[in-house]
């Protein structure tokens, strides 16, 4: 049976820390500036996993403040992943 997946792209490589050896179910692609992870999307009785929970489950650590863009719309890290979602994680800081 085909597994449902979503993609999570980090726009910058220094946004994220991870250990590929712990990520058998995840496809990792290097992009020009960062990484894209193709992650399985699970559905359970509670309705599924958030972006934050999914990252935690695979040991993908966000090391800078960031906000996800889900299918072109701004969401927060508690957004519940849906099959086919395209997520871009964007660094957040500002001021001056």
């Amino acid at each position, binding site marked *: 049976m085909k597994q449902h997946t979503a993609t999570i792209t980090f726009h910058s490589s220094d946004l994220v820390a991870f250990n590929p050896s712990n990520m058998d179910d995840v496809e990792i692609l290097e992009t020009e500036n960062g990484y894209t992870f193709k992650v399985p999307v699970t559905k359970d009785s509670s309705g599924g996993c958030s972006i934050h929970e999914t990252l935690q489950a695979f040991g993908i650590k966000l090391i800078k403040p960031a*906000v996800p863009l889900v299918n072109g719309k701004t969401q927060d890290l508690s957004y519940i992943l849906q099959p086919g979602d395209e997520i871009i994680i964007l660094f957040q800081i500002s001021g001056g």
Partner: protein
Amino acid sequence: MAIVGNSLTIQPDSQFLAGNQAYTGYILRVDLSTGEIWVDQPKEQFYRKFIGGRNVILHYLLKELPPKADPLGEENLLIFAPGLLTGTILPGAGRHAVGGKSPLTGALGSCETGGWWGAELKRSGFDALVIQGKAESPVYLWIKNGTVEIRDAVSLWGKLTAEAEDEIRQELGDERIRVAQIGPAGENLVRYACIIHDSSRAAGRSGLGAVMGSKNLKAVAVRGSYAVGVADPEKIKPVQKWVFDHYKTSMAWAIERGTPGSVKPNHDIGAMAIKNYREGTFKGIEALDGDHLHVSLITEHDTCFRCPVRCKPVIDYVDEEITIDRRYGGPEYETIGALGPLCMVNEPLHVAKANELCSAYGIDTISAGGTIAFTMEAAERGLLPDEAAAPQFGDGEALVESIHKIAYRQGLGDLMAEGSGRMAEVLGAEAEDMLAVARKQELPLHDPRLKQTMAMGYALSATGADHMHNLNDTFASFPDGDISIRLKEMGVAAPLELWGISEHKIEGFYYETAFKNFYDCAVICHFYPYTYQHMSDAISAAGGWDFSIDEINHIGLRAINMGRQFLVREGFTAEDDHLSPRIYHRLEEGPIAGKGLTPEELQHWLGVYYQRMGWDEQGRPTEETLIKLDL
């Protein structure tokens, strides 16, 4: 240039001289009308209760400024206030606050700046400087190790900021003098003129440069060689060590790209306002992002007093058509957003040149960008009397020319120098609908349709729209961020949800805005991710007290409540806690399409916040609340 007023010499408190406390014990007072110079000598309890910065500013405004005073009249006070931690060994404590009644808003004028000046004032023997009156002709103040003089500045009037700084240093024979000064915009009473320090650091918001200009005060030059010690060095050293152990990772973003590094990410999530808040995406944003600017224009990074981070971008550029003087620094995130996408300008050289002119003339870049974008839309709609002279969206050369016209109040620049709020009053109802302001102050580059709790902060703040002493919804939604860590210290579940406002977010807003106001009293750089415990240890060490986390919270709450008292006595009511119409306009495309608060939602949550603060239904602090805070 001779001494034109009185002079004064004091010897700082013996405990300060011995390096046993972080406050000098003297607040310097100058009356420019009479030439009188004197000092206040507050007791220890004053320092413990107020700490410095915004609280000291509000203390003097509430006590001495007559209600409804003209912000550009002799009565207004101009206050420079470092904080208890300014000048100590703590990294990030090189800042100071500047305040008075704002000529832009008619409310509280209060902003902070980095650089070296604040620490230098403490090192010269003074905890703050309170200026009143108006000199007969242009003067500047010279403060060195407890000695104060009022000096003639007729020949400095009209000079650009770096030129005036050079001349003052030359006249006084010391290249290490630190200068706070106004440029031509402050002299010409531009309502959002700022005060420039070290030629590139702006006490930007509230129009305090115009207050300085109205007093015929060109500059305040300081030089000090006293060391700012602390009462308990062993207590502050672990906090300093924590910074040195962590800043290369926790503040890597600032070291690598500074705030320009967040331009494109902020644009991509919809945080950056585009075309006067009318569009959701901006073509060519990449050219203005830190990644590109660090290749194309930014040549180096500068730093502030005892800060290892070095986040300040500097541009040094020369070609046949444009030169950009490195002494004026380089544009930060807010400036790039205000002078770039807000005005639809995507040529980095034009944005950089406009930033340089704002530093040279002494103009707040956020209000300048907001006013120019508003003018561009007014021109597009045919609302201006002379459309041929008006800047058009996307025209970088017109952007640069507009800065010049505003500073010298030339042509349409005379009206633009009043700010977009007053422009709209002249241009009529259609123009009112285009406004993006709170209390007539132009919004910073944090779109309130995305950051809705920050939008409430814009409406509430005694200064008008401000992103600094506010809650940033996107940062607060990050589970491991410094805001989440601080909220957990205060027993609030974190992170906060990104979208909307809720009881939970109001609780987060209550604590985090108090903490940010504490930062502006202490006066600490907002980029440093200190916790309540760090600050409790640092203040305890500086003053020789056992300063609790609750006292940290109370310092911030005092600032917010005194700000509110100031609003009430100046005639502001709950009806003024609102946002201008453009902020309620929903975007049709982009990452935040369709999102935003309604006026009714804002009204509801303001009521919830009033209650949390112990204010009445009109948003006035109750007697019980003021007593609880010893106000």
